[in-house]
């Protein structure tokens, strides 16, 4: 992108970006079971802070065929448990239509069983052919050879795992996390599309530059106590934190 374009975007009143989120999936087996919500409630009470207002995706794959199902009522009762249903996967046509009408988003899925929903036949039916902005999980890029000076490796929309060393003058980038199971001597940039939760892990920190979601630190600014030590680097409070592993 041109620098003029970047400036224009920065001045715009909004920014439209792709991003990926980890979400829980609530697999709905038998919603008619009298124990359904009492069991769900006790599960939620085990970790109330973790579950409070957590977005969930409803998985209807295991719904019995032709079962009577009051989806609106079901969603309301899930919300009572402080879980927020935002999307769905799978399920019979009638349930999918009801879910769409109820404002849930059809989610894509990496699992082969559910890719069926994206086949032309299903798409033609209109039930699940809505454009989808949530990104699919991609497998990590695994590199087993040393990354040499001058080389650049980018794991697009994925984690990057390197089982060798990253040399001085080499650059490794990922939209997700970066793991280096050798010495990290070059530059490592994680979460380069803006994922604040991305982290960098390495066996021996000797990096020239580390960066997460655009925030960076040069080797001069890294506490010498961490030098050549196994560490993880994460972003919190707008600051890069280095901690021993």
């Amino acid at each position, binding site marked *: 992108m041109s620098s003029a374009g970047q400036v224009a975007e920065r001045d715009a009143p909004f920014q439209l970006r792709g991003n990926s989120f980890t979400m829980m999936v609530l697999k709905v087996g038998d919603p008619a079971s009298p124990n359904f919500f009492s069991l769900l409630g006790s599960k939620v009470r085990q970790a109330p802070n973790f579950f409070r207002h957590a977005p969930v995706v409803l998985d209807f794959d295991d719904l019995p065929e032709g079962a009577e199902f009051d989806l609106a009522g079901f969603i309301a009762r899930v919300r009572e448990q402080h879980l927020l249903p935002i999307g769905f996967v799978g399920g019979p046509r009638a349930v999918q239509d009801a879910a769409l009408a109820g404002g849930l988003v059809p989610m894509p899925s990496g699992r082969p069983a559910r890719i069926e929903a994206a086949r032309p036949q299903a798409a033609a039916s209109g039930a699940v052919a809505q454009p989808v902005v949530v990104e699919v999980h991609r497998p990590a890029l695994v590199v087993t050879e*040393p990354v*040499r*000076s*001058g*080389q650049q490796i980018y794991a697009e929309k994925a984690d990057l795992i390197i089982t060798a060393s990253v*040399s*001085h*003058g080499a650059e490794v980038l990922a939209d997700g996390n970066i793991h280096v199971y050798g010495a990290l001597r070059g530059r490592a940039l994680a979460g380069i599309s803006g994922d604040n939760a991305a982290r960098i892990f390495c066996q021996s920190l000797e990096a020239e530059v580390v960066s997460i979601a655009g925030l960076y630190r040069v080797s001069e600014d890294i506490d010498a106590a961490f030098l050549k030590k196994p560490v993880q680097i994460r972003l919190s409070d707008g600051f890069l934190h280095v901690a021993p592993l």
Partner: protein
Amino acid sequence: MGKIIVMTSGKGGVGKTTSSAAFATGLALRGFKTVVIDFDVGLRNLDLVMGCERRVVFDFINVINGEAKLHQALIKDKRVDNLFILPTSQTRDKDALTKDGVERILADLEKDFDYIVCDSPAGIERGALMALYFADHAVIVTNPEVSSVRDSDRILGVLNAKSRRAEQGLEPVTQRLLLTRYDPERVERGEMLKVDDVLEILAIPLLGVVPESQAVLRASNIGMPVILDEKSNAGLAYMDAVSRFLGEDVEHRFVKPEKKGLFGRFLRRSA
């Protein structure tokens, strides 16, 4: 079919030409028909180190351009049987190295020779790329200091990405380290990188450690590959490296400072 060996380093002045001359001579001494080619077009040095600069009529570039036949440009060494030199042009530049031309000549040489040693120029541009492109084996010549090690790392990346074997998805070019100008006493004083430090960074097998030696400059000045100086540590180290290249298990020497008594120190000072 002969095997193509590239002597490369990225950095200049680390001893590529010295090592190419010594290594090719060593292979010939071991009975293999060997040719050493100078890829440093415009900075012709190999013929000087090999002592054949006054016998150059046609060169590598003449053959690429079809101005001479290969056998007219090959110079037979006077000291060692089975050893030939293909000198380069001093008046041309690296653009004269066309991929087709280099490929054609190497293909011709492969039929006739056991080993083809390519003496790469410094850098990572055309000359160096052409020298390494067709290689089966790479010998990375490195000095025990950080800039040389980093440039060697860079050239290893180039080998992994831009060699013919990499481009065609064949078995990768074998990569081995030749650590030259190694001074164990300076290493001990912390003024030079240790062998292990270099190996940790480059992570390739060690072919040999050639000690810093007056014999190298002396041999170079009289146009003799230093491997022919059997009294010098450098010459012995090159011979060991050739043996290891041929698959023999030879212990590394010249890695630790020589143990000397007071008498030895006096002797060495006068030497």
